[in-house]
């Protein structure tokens, strides 16, 4: 297993290098720059600005200088837009918020998705199954930018129980986590239902039933392990996605997370902030996929670390 992990980590090095290089040069190819604004800056001042940030040097020199700082010092550079903050500082500020929101949403998604997915599979083709599937379909179809504001209208404006936006008290966590978690729970529910249905028709389940095992034991001990495989495969990139923040949710609820920075930095041509978040997301996705592979081998005896 250690060899497997080491192998995968080594594979990650060229992947990350390619991601950094492609992002770096694509960003520079995009029209406009960090200092392009409604009011054009006089050329003399623009030259001073470019000299300050090293943008006056040849592109390949800038690339290797940047790469050197990232690899040797973990220094992601200063932000172009937020002139007194470094990218490291912004990520250190915002990542915990995204992790918290993503973690809570993941919890909501797993609890709702697994429970209703299993129930739907067990009560296949009954009214309950149709109900859960319909709600699941709605969860996938109704975009968060509709669902979120609806929750705000009800709980913040009509009832006045929670704030409409902000991230100050624990109550402020409820609506964003529910909104984000609900969408993910729909996917998880459908995957769980499909996975469970497949497993419940296998011979070893019939054997367990024949031996007189209780329904609860059959589901939790025997079926769930196999039935969860598709969910686990989805959770790899899904978790990375949740933890790195959601632009829409963070905007709707004014959550100071990383998702908004990621999208806005691209609009602002904040070169260093875009690259910093891209590197972080890439590392997280690589890590999550590795964990998923390990879990899948553990869940599925047919797979081996080869």
């Amino acid at each position, binding site marked *: 297993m250690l060899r497997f992990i080491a192998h995968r980590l080594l594979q990650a090095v060229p992947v990350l290098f390619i991601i950094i290089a492609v992002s770096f040069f694509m960003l520079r190819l*995009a029209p406009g720059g960090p200092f392009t604004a409604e009011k054009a800056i006089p050329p*003399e001042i623009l030259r*001073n600005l470019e000299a300050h940030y090293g943008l006056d040097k040849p592109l390949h020199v800038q690339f290797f200088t940047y790469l050197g700082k990232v690899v040797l010092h973990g220094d992601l550079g200063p932000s172009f837009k937020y002139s007194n903050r470094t990218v490291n500082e912004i990520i250190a500020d915002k990542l915990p918020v995204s992790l918290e929101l993503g973690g809570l949403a993941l919890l909501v998604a797993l609890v709702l998705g697994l429970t209703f997915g299993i129930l739907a599979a067990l009560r296949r083709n009954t009214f309950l199954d149709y109900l859960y599937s319909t709600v699941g379909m709605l969860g996938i179809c109704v975009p968060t930018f509709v669902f979120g504001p609806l929750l705000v209208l009800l709980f913040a404006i009509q009832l006045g129980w929670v704030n*409409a*936006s902000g991230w100050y008290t624990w109550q402020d966590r409820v609506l964003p986590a529910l909104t984000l978690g609900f969408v993910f729970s729909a996917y998880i529910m459908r995957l769980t239902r499909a996975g469970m249905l497949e497993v419940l028709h296998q011979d070893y389940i019939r054997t367990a039933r024949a031996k007189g095992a209780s329904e609860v034991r059959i589901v939790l001990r025997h079926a769930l392990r196999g039935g969860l495989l598709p969910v686990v495969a989805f959770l790899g990139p899904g978790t990375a996605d949740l933890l790195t923040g959601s632009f829409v949710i963070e905007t709707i609820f004014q959550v100071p997370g990383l998702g908004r920075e990621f999208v806005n930095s691209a609009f602002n041509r904040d070169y260093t902030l875009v690259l910093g978040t891209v590197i972080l997301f890439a590392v997280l996705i690589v890590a999550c996929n590795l964990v998923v592979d390990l879990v899948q081998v553990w869940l599925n005896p047919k797979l081996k670390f080869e």
Partner: protein
Amino acid sequence: MSRGLTFLLAALAALLLAGGCARRETAVANGNRDGVLHFSIGSEPTDLDPHVVTGIGEAKVIHALFEPLVSFDPATLKPVPALAERWDVSPDGLVYTFHLRATAVWTNGDPITAQDCVDSWRRMLTPSLAADYAYLFYIIRGAEDFNKGRTTDFATVGVAAPGPHTLVVTLAQPAPYFLQILLNSPWRPVHLRSIAAVGDAYRRGIPWTRPGRIVTSGPFMIKEWSPHQRIVADRSPTYWDRANVKVNTIIFYPTESVDVEERGFRAGQLHITWSLPLGKVAAYRREQSPSLRVDPYLDTYFFRLNTRRAPLDDVRLRRALSLAIDRQLIAEKVLQGGQRPAATLVPPEMPDYTQPVRPLHDLAAARRLLAEAGHPDGRGLPPLEILYNNSEIIRLVAEAIQEMWRRDLGLDVRLVNQEYKVVFANRRTGNYQILLSDWVGDYLDATTFLDLWRSDAGNNHTGWGSADYDALMNRAAATADLAARAALLQQAETLMLDAAPIAPIYFNTHVYLQQPSVKDWHPSPMDHIDYRHVRLEP
């Protein structure tokens, strides 16, 4: 299993209910009682360094933190004393002598001296700081040469402190708007010694503006800055006019989405919003909401017409396009936010200036000009392209004018929508035909709009230039007599509008929401707020 499900639902319900079954007291109600103003400022401030920032949201915070030399009367907009107790102007309008208030101190207790002003402006003009708005200082004698690196001797710049409380500024040309421009963020003095304690004061990006480090001079001082959440500013105990500050605390909220902001306002989280989404203006008007506010704003929307490219290199075609815009309809039916139709570029609020009289809409003349240009009823004209950026308001305006030109002139007009930085890049290289643009004035004078069309101006982008126009602008700049100056400027605007490198569309307004409990809120058309006056009524 079903018992587990019931438990789960009950737990979720409990979680929500625990938030408080009862309606909670809103932040606004709480703030009215305790004197806390909740104020949304649009996007997250890029910094709070008055020399480096360029945005309007940043300015709103900076105006609470840094005191200007001269403030303004909210009713008359005339200059009133602030850091400077009084000032004298030489008869030729070139030399301003400011007598600073001896009682004014920084938040660290240091007195605010004339040397602080000199040091601040020196920092602003130092090339290594690369301040975007340094060009606003070019009205000071020698400032441009120093900023562009032609000299490194700051003594050549017309700023001096002959005494601890005497500041003498020598201008390159008489500028009747000079006192007014002092309100802009970069002109407000900063405390150089505390900046130098954090790092190289002449380079941008050093974190001197964080709470605990920043030394300020204004009615409020910063207590907390949580990026993308809030900036909390308390009343400053060292401010010279602290007895007249009525609010205890201002909390500034960066709210990037106007829809989110509007919901926050309705939920009682904000006293004042940044802006009201266009789609909601009609509803607030219908309900005659006491919260709806429409303020004049120095912002004109217009088309840039690329005079370098056929067929718009023909002045007759450009004028025909301009005359065929039904500006009244756009202002009243499309926008509905109190915007006014614009036949000229300089907004009507501009002091010491009279706009030239121009037709708002003249279809007959437009059709005649189009025929003279060889295209009766639009015949023989290739399709024209309007370039605009992703914005709800701008899209609606572009679509309305596309239809007007199609219906009334028979033109085939296409809309091209690009991301805003791409639009700016194409504008710079002249890669457009018709570009929907706007310009927000930097100071309260017609030249902030008219200087754009000088042939060497960096923001012209239309390819149009005229020696006569430049000469008129130069003569106006050298004229101290206000009436004569205004006449020259009006002549210049008329000349420019006749040549039609631009087609004005409307004068914008600032539409936003304000709780009725906020009193004496008087922003100037330049978006300056004197926070001393603001009160909250419980």
